[in-house]
């Protein structure tokens, strides 16, 4: 039944301005969240938030891509499109989490890494690449949840952990259907059509083994009942961390390696 919903309709829900953001979930899932700013190289990229918090009284590091709820906020958050500085801040906080042996939880919601002059000048490609190689060897558990849009490399840079989950109506893809239609079919008006063949929905990605879990949403989308969705994310995180934290560091890294090695 759930599978019958069109990919395009899910994408529309994932992009709604009412879609709950990273901070909405942080507020409901964790206690004592304390935000940590800056990449220590250039600046603080506000499209990524991060900090320390407690999950069920245990310390964790939380990192997430933050979209705005209105135009003003979106200008400040760069519409949730991180610059290299954002990815470098995320990596700094992950290294800090590793030092203090606390798990890392990432919330992902971006149409993609920002495509601009300064992003290129400061090495957008290098920043994403660095996260991929470093996350492969970080010795604490990493769980990533796609809560809205999972746009290509800009999402992958926070989704290289032990588990990747998706909210039911979120999407994860190599490129937006609009971009895909204009590159491969030279026709942007085919976006809706290609969305159905691109395999961007949580159900299709679960089937392909790209993600491990789908977190159900109320009818109409997560914004209809944020508390409910936040509560189920919280339960799932607590349970999964118990499993991941019971593994030795070697087991954890080897299983993480194989998680991506299998895509051949």
């Amino acid at each position: 039944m759930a599978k019958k919903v069109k990919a395009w309709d899910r994408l529309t829900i994932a992009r709604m301005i009412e879609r709950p953001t990273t901070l909405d979930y942080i507020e409901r899932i964790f206690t004592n969240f304390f935000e940590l700013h800056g990449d220590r190289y250039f600046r603080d990229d506000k499209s990524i938030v991060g900090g320390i918090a407690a999950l069920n009284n245990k310390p964790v590091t939380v990192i997430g891509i933050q979209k705005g709820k209105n135009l003003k906020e979106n200008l400040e958050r760069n519409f949730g499109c991180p610059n290299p500085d954002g990815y470098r801040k995320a990596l700094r906080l992950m290294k800090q989490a590793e030092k203090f042996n606390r798990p890392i939880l990432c919330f992902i919601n971006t149409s993609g890494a920002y495509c601009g002059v300064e992003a290129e000048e400061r090495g957008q490609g290098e920043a994403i690449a660095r996260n991929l190689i470093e996350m492969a060897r970080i010795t604490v558990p990493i769980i990533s949840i796609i809560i809205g849009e999972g746009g290509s490399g800009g999402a992958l840079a926070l989704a290289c952990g032990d588990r990747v989950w998706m909210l039911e109506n979120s999407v994860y893809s190599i490129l937006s259907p609009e971009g895909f239609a204009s590159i491969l079919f030279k026709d942007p008006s085919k976006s809706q059509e290609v969305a159905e063949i691109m395999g961007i929905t949580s159900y299709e990605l679960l089937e392909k083994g790209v993600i491990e879990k789908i977190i159900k949403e109320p009818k109409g989308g997560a914004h209809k009942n944020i508390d409910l969705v936040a509560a189920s994310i919280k339960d799932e995180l607590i349970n999964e961390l118990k499993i991941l934290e019971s593994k030795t560091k070697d087991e954890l890294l080897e299983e993480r390696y194989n998680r991506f090695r299998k895509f051949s």
Partner: protein
Amino acid sequence: MQIFKKKQYGVINLPKEEEKDLPVVPEGTWVKCNKCGKILYKKSLEENLNVCTNCNHYFRLGSYERLSLICDKGTFKEFNKNMASKNPMNFPKYETKIKANQEKSGNVEAVVTGECEIGGNKAIIAVMDSNFLMGSMGTVVGEKITLAIEEATKRKLPIIIFTASGGARMQEGILSLMQMAKISSALAKHNEAGLLYITVLTDPTTGGVTASFAMLGDIILAEPKALIGFAGRRVIEGTIKEKLPADFQSAEFLLEHGFVDNIVERKDLKRVLSTLLKLHKSKEV
């Protein structure tokens, strides 16, 4: 005597008006430089390592052309030569496209991997080929590169990757994206083993390849003027609604901003790689 009498008019075949100035040469003797437009004699171009003799423009090289410039003669042994792409996302007409590109490029896929010696130094090498679907990275490219890195780690050898790619292969969807993580994870292990990884960025190196293994070398080299970037020029121009300067995302631009270690001319590449490999051999060797 009638039979010896000359005809009043002889018939000669004049070339048609538009053809008469063209010299008659065998096909493929001349090549036009797509930078300066000059017509070049193919043999001299090849002798100049496919660098335009007039304007110094670097022609893109196929994988095997590159290997013959870099590897010591007779030392290259290819890995997984016949590994070919399937159609994991059931993308319409993908098989036909792959077949056409195989015929066009003479390669089975967009990367060639293997082992070789460079100036007598053993190394694992991977060379991408922009003649094959713009060097895009799908599951086979990802798998061949990952296997090459794993082999290098197992045999404690350095790895050199020549990048040339438009990025992730759209027709294989999310699985192409996963290759970025897969290759980077394999590089993490190679790195942890204290082994040398050199990338040579050639024209063009963009998208998901830039955002993964291209930018992860211990040493990152680039060919002069190579286009290197994350986002495409048109995408950025569309975002900022401005025209970008001509040298934006060139190898020189990256050098200036601190993202490549050095720009090396094609004629010097083999010597530089050989020296770098030698300098990273352990003391006993």
